[in-house]
């Protein structure tokens, strides 16, 4: 009997032993997973700190673009870690960057630079330069120039430039180079085809990304302009205004006076125009920049519309023809593709472009420092 009681105790010990092994393995696995998770979290925090370093440098470079060299010592962020940013005018290999380009190397450290457990590093190349001939084109896209639909259903009177690839029939893009007509060329228009002596369409990858204006400066102008088509309202259009189709200004010049410069129409959302509109001004379709600068918005035009002015959109510009007349007198800048589909006319206006260039110059609205290339360094460089 005594021996039997002893065997139960041994069996109980055996079971307990097995349970302990299972529990121990589970605990071990859980601890490992916790470490893995913590490491992941800290890596995310270090990345966030590195991004803070880029933002800090960009902010400082707004007022001291060429002289700002970065943080003098690591900046501590309570509860997370430290970051630092170094700014130079050279590449990693020591070669010089193009004129007016700067390189930001921002590093996030957890918990500190002195004793880093996790380090993440971002390298951003920034430019602050107004591209040559920025105001010289009817169509200006930092991505693709796409023409589709019936041949010659559209008419572009002015030059076009794109950064990536063209598609479709670009033969109808012509412009007047202001040379006197000759017997061989009675109209003296320069066309992309046939046999144009000068290119009406230019490929230039360096115009990507699209020049970024100092939007706050242009928004201030829009805020100061009263809109005669809407009582007691200025030229800032919210998403709600667009939904309710609040009328846009109908002339290019503010109060129809060239001395006032152009209407600046600041569109905080995607702009869609349709049906019988006659609108004017410099249209800035930049989305909710102050709330979410990452939003890309598009500008879509369709129906019978006359746009007396220019459109700047960070997104795509789509000109849908249909059966109506579509006239844009001025020009279009697009951060995304420009798609011209169906019947329509885009006519470049030197007068309007000069007025816009003056406005930009007077308000200091361009160029703003903007990131051209953003990458994360996997082989961390401490400089």
């Amino acid at each position: 009997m005594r021996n039997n009681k002893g065997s139960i105790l041994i069996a109980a010990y055996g079971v307990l032993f097995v349970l302990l092994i299972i529990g121990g393995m589970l605990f071990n696995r859980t601890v490992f997973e916790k470490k893995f998770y913590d490491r992941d979290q800290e890596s995310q925090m270090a990345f966030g700190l590195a991004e803070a370093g880029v933002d800090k440098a960009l902010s400082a470079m707004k007022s001291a673009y060429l002289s700002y060299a970065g943080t003098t010592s690591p900046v501590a962020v309570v509860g997370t870690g430290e970051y630092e940013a170094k700014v130079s005018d050279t590449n990693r290999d020591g070669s010089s960057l193009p004129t007016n380009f700067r390189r930001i190397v921002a590093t996030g450290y957890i918990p500190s630079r002195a004793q880093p457990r996790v380090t993440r590093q971002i390298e951003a190349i920034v430019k602050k330069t107004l591209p040559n001939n920025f105001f010289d084109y009817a169509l200006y896209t930092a991505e693709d120039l796409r023409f589709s639909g019936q041949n010659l259903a559209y008419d572009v009177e002015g030059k076009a430039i794109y950064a990536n690839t063209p598609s479709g029939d670009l033969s109808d893009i012509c412009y007047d180079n202001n040379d006197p007509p000759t017997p061989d060329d009675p109209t003296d228009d320069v066309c992309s085809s046939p046999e144009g002596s000068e290119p009406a369409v230019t490929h230039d990858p360096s115009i990507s990304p699209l020049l970024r204006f100092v939007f706050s400066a242009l928004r201030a102008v829009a805020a100061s302009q009263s809109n005669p088509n809407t009582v007691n309202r200025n030229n800032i259009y919210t998403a709600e205004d667009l939904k309710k189709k609040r009328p846009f200004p109908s002339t290019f010049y503010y109060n129809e006076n060239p001395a006032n410069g152009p209407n600046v129409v600041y569109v905080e959302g995607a702009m869609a125009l349709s049906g019988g509109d006659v609108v004017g001004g410099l249209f800035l379709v930049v989305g909710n920049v102050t709330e979410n600068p990452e939003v890309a918005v598009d500008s879509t035009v369709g129906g019978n519309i006359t746009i007396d002015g220019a459109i700047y959109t960070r997104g795509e510009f789509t000109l849908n023809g249909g059966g109506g007349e579509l006239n844009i007198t001025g020009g279009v800048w697009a951060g995304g593709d420009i798609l011209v589909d169906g019947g329509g006319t885009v006519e470049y206006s030197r007068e309007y472009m000069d007025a816009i260039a003056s406005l930009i110059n007077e308000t200091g609205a361009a160029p703003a420092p903007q990131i051209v290339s953003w990458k994360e360094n996997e082989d961390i460089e401490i400089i």
Partner: protein
Amino acid sequence: MSGVTKARALKAEKGFSLIEIVIVFFVSLLLIGGLFATLSSSRNTWHRADAQIMLQEELRRGMRQIVRDLRQSGTSQISLPDNGLNYTSVSFNVTDGVLSSGAVDWNSDEVFYNLSAGQVLRTQGADTRVIANKVGSANFSRSGRVVNVYLQCQTQTPSNQVYSANLNSSVVLRNE
């Protein structure tokens, strides 16, 4: 001890009755059953926890690499159309800085992610690597500059129970 004494001693020894043996048998049966139930439950708990942890690790490891790569691409350099629809693969270029002309220097070796035989593969140039195993589905979609990545992993335990986990991440393309 004499033979007579030995016989008396044996006679004094009492054996177990049938009822006692039956009771001991059932009690032992209950105890052993309970022990096995406990062990089996513990084993299942272990397998479940192990599977979940393993799936989470796979998901995190895969997602971390995808997100890191995608951030370095741009809207003009990615195969995903801006339509919010799901695709099972994605290809894109990442930046290497800028050229002397000021144009962005896009790495000519495209990065390509796809799902093949339960593995998410990352291919760049001639280099192909497995970045996540036991993947049931991988979806990529784009709305403007935001790319959504969805990964779902699943595994089967030795007791044929299927466990799955998924991870969703939204990535902002840092370049244009």
